[in-house]
């Protein structure tokens, strides 16, 4: 039977990636920025699974597993940083983090 062409899967991943990119660049709330980063990571994982499906072996899934681990660790650390930032500046506006200018 007909199967899904590879480029459709990859194009889906690319679309999700750019949506995440827009989110990172636009939003001023730092939690939303982190969420958009998650979207981008997820899109990357999707690309790997598509590749695994194209070749028919499991390495892509292993890569996805690693990406997942990475995302988990990153979220943990990022949220910790957000908590610190909130305690210090009493706001989640990303623009207050601009002391290192010049």
């Amino acid at each position, binding site marked *: 039977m*007909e*199967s*899904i*062409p*590879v*480029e*459709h899967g*990859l*194009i*889906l991943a*690319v*679309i*999700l990636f*750019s*949506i995440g*990119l*827009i*989110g990172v*660049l*636009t*939003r*001023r*709330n730092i*939690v*939303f920025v982190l969420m*958009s980063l*998650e*979207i981008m990571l*997820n899109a990357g*994982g*999707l690309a790997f*699974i*598509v590749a*695994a*499906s*194209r*070749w*028919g*072996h*499991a*390495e892509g*899934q*292993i890569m*996805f*597993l690693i990406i*997942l*681990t990475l995302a988990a*660790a990153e*979220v*943990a*650390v990022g*949220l*910790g940083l*957000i*908590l*610190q930032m*909130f*305690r210090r500046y009493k706001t*989640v*506006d990303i623009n207050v983090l601009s002391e290192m200018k010049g």
Partner: protein
Amino acid sequence: MIALFYIAAIIAVIATVAVILQTNIVHGLLYLILSLLAVAVIFYVLGAPFAAVLEAIVYAGAIMVLFLFVIMMLNLGQHTRDQERSWLTPRGWIVPSLLAGVLLGQLVNVMSQIDHELIPEQVGVMEVSALLFGPYVLAVELASILLLAGLVAAYHLAKTK
């Protein structure tokens, strides 16, 4: 199955767009969970059931819940929602959309040159675990070290004093 792929794809895209347009944080998170579950369905259609389950349980189930906890800790109220609305001016969307659009165009251009089909067989847990315990056992170790580092960092960074 193929139709399922495209339906799930459309749902994922719409949900993701909704995430970045939200003013309420919790609503945004919920849309993100929806997007992740749709991607999990896509994984299953592509023949990676293990990855699908992982996505649903770990990503949508644990990581997003972690997000929710922290947001609840931050206790952002109504005034945050108004603030968010004021921040999301239409003018702010132009440059990022332009950049992302250019990137999208380039990558689509590159991707559409590939001409191949996906293999519909399922690659089950057995194959994945065989590889994990075999050639990629170091990757597992590295992942666990990464998690340990993340654990220590998160504990230390979130301390009050």
